[in-house]
């Protein structure tokens, strides 16, 4: 029952301390790491990506602007006849390539779509482009940049074509962009191990290869037209931990896609997170241990103070019980002593009267006298009982009296004699004659003797011997009373605990476990000590030592 209460209190302490110390910490860690840091980091990556997309888009735009400018310069500084010369065209290509490697070949196409001149690695001279889509686009737009296509060379490439009108006729200068140069320009934006960068056209067809498998001209599917159409400036999307930066290439209807792996970007930060969680766990463990230790010591203190309180309560109850008993005894004694006095005086008066009579004249004179004496005798007996009661009552007043230890022991035993007799327990007294008087509190010492005798009777149960021995130890100036029994004895390890409060071997309700604790206290206060010597199965001996001192 009590253990349950303490357990509950302990549970409450642990829960409260634990929660109050844990909640702010866990909140802090999770709020900072998983909400704030995440947001800051995401913002940072998003902004970086935005800048990157913008820069890359600018450089791609610039690349095309430069190429167009180059081609325009070539077209407008030469006429059709000059450029139709293969040799000249080759020289021109060499000059162009000496400053910039971005153009692979040059070609001149007449208005019928015939490839009249070509300078470059492929054998394309004489091919007719009349039916090619780009041919019509360039006629229509004058300058045209193609998507990637296979064309006659059966190799994915991008061309820039420019139409020049010369009087009634027109001709076309076509240049092919070097895929390697262009691809590496785009792929320059591939960051880390999982970052990707590529261009797609409005049909989501790759214009430059993606880093992870997808070849040019294959379709990507994770972005749809809707997304592309919504792009105005630069845009960053989060798709399953992947940051996707998007931008339009103004010169074509292309889109620049740069992806960054969020996990990779945040890996460093994730390490910090793991560290923080580990530290958190360590702290939690420390708090748990601390909480348990604190609660344990609190409960220990609580139990101790509760025990002390109970001890005081028990002492108080014991003394108030004794005081009440004393009052009762005094009252009873007084009420009985008055009639006893009357009876005694009456008997005395009969004796007085009888002494005036002549013995021979009264038939039963001897009997009358005998009976009057008997009455006196038994009044005396009753008086001794009431005086004993009164003596007991008087002893409750705290006092320092000169006490004959033998008489005290004798008297105390007399209280339990009938019970001992009933249980067939023999009481053997071996009292030292002429034991010095001691100055002490009779009532308290008597209570101690009574407690020990009580225990001795309980230890024996039935059939046994209780021995009382008094003696005098000259060197220590102490007298002692040894009370031995032939009871069950006390095991060695238990012997240390018998003076502890609430230690009892009796059934609950039979004993408070306070008798010996109180006894120990009393004797200690009176300047003495109690010692116990016990053998299991043989019996126990309790020895009370009290100092011999006199009050001045």
């Amino acid at each position, binding site marked *: 029952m009590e253990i349950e209460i303490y357990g509950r209190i302990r549970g409450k302490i642990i829960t409260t301390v634990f929660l109050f110390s844990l909640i702010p910490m866990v909140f802090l860690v999770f709020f900072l790491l998983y909400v704030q840091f995440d947001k800051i980091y995401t913002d940072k990556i998003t902004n970086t990506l935005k800048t990157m997309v913008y820069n890359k888009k600018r450089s791609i735009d610039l690349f095309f602007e430069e190429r167009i400018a180059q081609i325009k310069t070539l077209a407008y500084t030469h006429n059709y006849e000059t450029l139709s010369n293969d040799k000249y065209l080759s020289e021109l290509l060499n000059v162009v390539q000496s400053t910039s490697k971005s153009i692979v070949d040059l070609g001149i196409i007449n208005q019928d779509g015939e490839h009249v001149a070509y300078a470059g690695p492929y054998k394309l001279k004489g091919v007719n482009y009349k039916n090619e889509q780009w041919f019509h686009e360039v006629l229509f737009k004058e300058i045209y940049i193609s998507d990637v296509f296979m064309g006659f060379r059966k190799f994915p490439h991008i061309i820039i074509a420019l139409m020049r009108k010369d009087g009634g006729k027109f001709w076309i200068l076509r240049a092919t962009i070097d895929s390697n140069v262009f691809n590496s320009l785009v792929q320059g934006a591939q960051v880390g191990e999982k970052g990707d960068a590529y261009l797609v056209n409005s049909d989501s067809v790759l214009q430059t290869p993606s880093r992870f498998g997808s070849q040019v001209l294959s379709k990507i599917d994770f972005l749809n037209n809707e997304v592309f159409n919504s792009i105005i400036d630069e845009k960053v999307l989060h798709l399953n931990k992947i940051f996707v930066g998007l931008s339009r290439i103004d010169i074509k209807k292309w889109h620049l896609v740069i992806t960054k792996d969020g996990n990779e970007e945040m890996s460093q930060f994730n390490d910090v997170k793991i560290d923080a969680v580990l530290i958190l766990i360590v702290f939690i463990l420390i708090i748990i241990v601390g909480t348990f230790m604190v609660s344990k010591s609190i409960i220990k203190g609580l139990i101790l103070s509760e025990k002390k309180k109970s001890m005081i309560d028990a002492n108080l109850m014991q003394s108030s019980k004794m005081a009440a008993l004393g009052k009762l005894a*005094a009252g009873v*004694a007084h*009420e009985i002593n008055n009639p*006893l*006095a009357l009876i*005694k005086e009456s008997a005395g*008066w009969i004796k007085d009267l009888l002494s005036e009579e002549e013995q021979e004249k009264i038939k039963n004179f001897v009997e009358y006298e005998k009976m009057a004496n008997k009455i006196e005798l038994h009044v005396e007996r009753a008086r001794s009982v009431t005086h004993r009661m009164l003596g007991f009552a*008087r002893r409750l007043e705290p006092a320092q009296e000169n006490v004959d230890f033998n008489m005290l022991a004798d008297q105390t035993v007399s209280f339990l004699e009938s019970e001992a007799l009933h249980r067939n327990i023999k009481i053997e007294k071996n009292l030292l004659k002429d034991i010095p008087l001691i100055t002490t509190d009779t009532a308290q010492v008597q209570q101690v003797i009574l407690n020990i005798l009580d225990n001795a009777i309980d230890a024996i149960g039935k059939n046994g011997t209780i021995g009382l021995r008094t003696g005098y130890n000259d060197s220590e100036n102490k007298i002692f009373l040894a009370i031995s029994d032939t009871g069950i004895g006390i095991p060695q390890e238990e012997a240390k605990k018998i003076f502890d409060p609430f230690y009892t071997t009796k059934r609950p309700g039979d004993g408070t476990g306070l008798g010996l604790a109180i006894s120990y206290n009393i004797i200690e206060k009176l300047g003495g000590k109690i010692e116990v010597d016990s053998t299991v199965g043989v019996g126990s001996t309790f020895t009370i030592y009290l100092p011999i001192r006199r009050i001045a």
Partner: protein
Amino acid sequence: MNTVKVMLVDDEVDFTEILQKRMKKRNIDTLIANSGKAAISLIKKEKIDVVVLDMKMPDLDGIQTMKELKKINPLLEVIMLTGHASLGIAKEGIELGAFDYLMKPIDTDSLIFKIQDAYKRKILQEEKIDSIKEIIKSRS
């Protein structure tokens, strides 16, 4: 020969009556009062040497009665009777000038001895006072 005059004060009527008879048989003259108040009025009328006073009585108890009696006659000797040996009351009584105390049930012979002792002390006290008075008289 001066004979001692004793007043027995106890609320137990039977007790005082029997005691009176027994005292009379031993040639001790006694008067009876069965309450503190009766004792006070009696002492005003009669010349009394020793009072045997029960400590526990209704209305005026032994201590109060003794105080009143001592006011009227300071040389009065009082023997207290108690039903229980209350050290406190006995001590208080002795401090107030009681001669001694006995516990009930009493032994008549010891009571008579106590009465005689008390009477002797009273006579001594009276003689002392007389001689002091004479000295004062002779000086003045």
